[in-house]
């Protein structure tokens, strides 16, 4: 081949709508990913209805409701941030973005306290200190110190599903921080809101998932 190789500027193709459509497709993959969790939850709930109810009683509906409202409020602020940016009010957009991040962090802190309370009651994944110590031997004979199967499954799913959700909140909040920095730098501006828009879409999706997680864990008791 020719020795005089030349590098050419990356092919620029501005298609805001196409990019957004692509981002929606990505959001569907997130939806289907949680979908698998929801299927597992649905199957085990139908099999262990009473255990699921008993276990769900140990979750605090008040905390769950508070967190739902916090997340909904953060959805509001992020949409306001986007609208403000579109209307050219950069400062307002930045403020709203900061509030969103703060609300996300509050959500995580409350979630952390909630988890901590469960750990204190030994409701660690395996649900019992005695059993937790025997980890690595998954075929231990069930004994009296162990919770019924249905409750074990409930707590396992609770920790994994809310944990995965919290991970998404963290990713969203970090992304928002980066977006904030870009707004401050000016690379995101009223003429170029694409990244802010996608960040907001992601945040809303995380909210949508919580909208389903909330009744399934806090309201089924």
């Amino acid at each position, binding site marked *: 081949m020719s020795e005089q190789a030349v590098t050419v500027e990356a092919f620029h193709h501005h298609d805001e709508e196409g990019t957004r459509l692509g981002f929606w497709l990505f959001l569907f993959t997130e939806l289907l990913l949680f979908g698998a969790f929801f299927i597992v939850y649905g199957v085990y709930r139908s099999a262990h209805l009473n255990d699921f109810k008993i276990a769900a009683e140990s979750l605090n509906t008040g905390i769950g409701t508070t967190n739902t409202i916090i997340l909904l409020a953060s959805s509001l602020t992020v949409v306001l941030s986007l609208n403000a940016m579109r209307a050219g009010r950069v400062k307002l957009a930045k403020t709203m973005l900061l509030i969103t991040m703060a609300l996300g962090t509050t959500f995580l802190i409350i979630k952390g306290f909630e988890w901590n309370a469960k750990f204190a009651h030994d409701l660690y994944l395996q649900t019992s200190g005695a059993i937790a110590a*025997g980890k*690595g*031997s998954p*075929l*231990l*004979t*069930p004994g009296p110190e162990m919770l019924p*199967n249905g409750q074990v499954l409930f707590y396992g799913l609770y920790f994994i599903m809310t944990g995965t959700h919290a991970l998404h909140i963290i990713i969203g909040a970090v992304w928002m921080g980066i977006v904030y920095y870009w707004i401050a730098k000016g690379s995101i501006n009223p003429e170029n809101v694409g990244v802010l828009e996608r960040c907001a879409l992601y945040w809303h999706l995380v909210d949508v998932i919580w909208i389903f997680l909330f009744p399934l864990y806090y309201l089924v008791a």
Partner: protein
Amino acid sequence: MNVNYNPPSVFAQDVDFAFWFIAYVSLFFLVFITGFIIFSIIKYNRKNNPVPSNLHGNTGLEIVWTIVPTILVMLFFYFGLQGFLKMRNVPKDAMEIKVDAGMWWWKFTYPNGLEQNTAQGLTVPADTPIYLPLHSDDVVHSFYIPAFRVKMDVVPKAAGAEDNYTWFEASQIGDFDLFCAEYCGLNHAQMITKVHVLTKPDYLAWLEEQSAGFLKQKAENPGQALITSKGCFACHSSDGTKLIGPSFKGLFGKTEIVVTGGEEREITVDEAYLKTSIMEPGKDIVKGFQPLMPPLPMTADEVMAIIDHIKELSE
């Protein structure tokens, strides 16, 4: 191996009818497709036919080859369903033989308590429906008798969940292969035994002869019975031969080097050690062996009976 053109069990004819029906229809289409390709290659070769037509399609033909396959596959479905319904509906008067599968053994438990292991095989009377509940405590196995067209996975289930089942009715005397058909680890290919089909009188005589000895031994030496029925001999010999695991012969009281969590230490085989090894097999591995033993759910009494028998073998 018994490969019978007229398979020796009750619903096998249905399976084979569906099989050969699909096979002939498939063969017809395969011959047609291949023949047409070869015909075209010769007739419409570029040399023979340098100017192609500009044929885009033909709606009538398209409709034909949508409808014809639809009808055929619905027939395939119907014939498959027929056999399946027979497979899943166990006759009321069926005799129950419990099947347990483990890594890498079979155990068959008769209504009177008689147990048969992999070496002995499954002995059944002819012309009698046999109902087989399938139980596993470790991993998924699959109970497969090719000659009878019988197969069902042996799936470990949660407490309270129903075990899988299957049934068959042998219509011919003889020995037939019984395989494990689901990959279950190292000795998957050794999880093979035989089904012995006897006439009814022969079966009754066999049952009486076997049961008397077995039940007596079980009462006298529960440990040995357990070791046999739990399949321990698949990996642990009683004569000093080194198999997958250490031999039981001379084991008790022996000094061994074991690996615990990556560190080697020297121990003496005592009751406490044996108990740990049975309940948590991955914990202390005797040097030179692989951590392969599956934990088997057992009561404390059963564990003690086994330890007692290992002591006997060591004397």
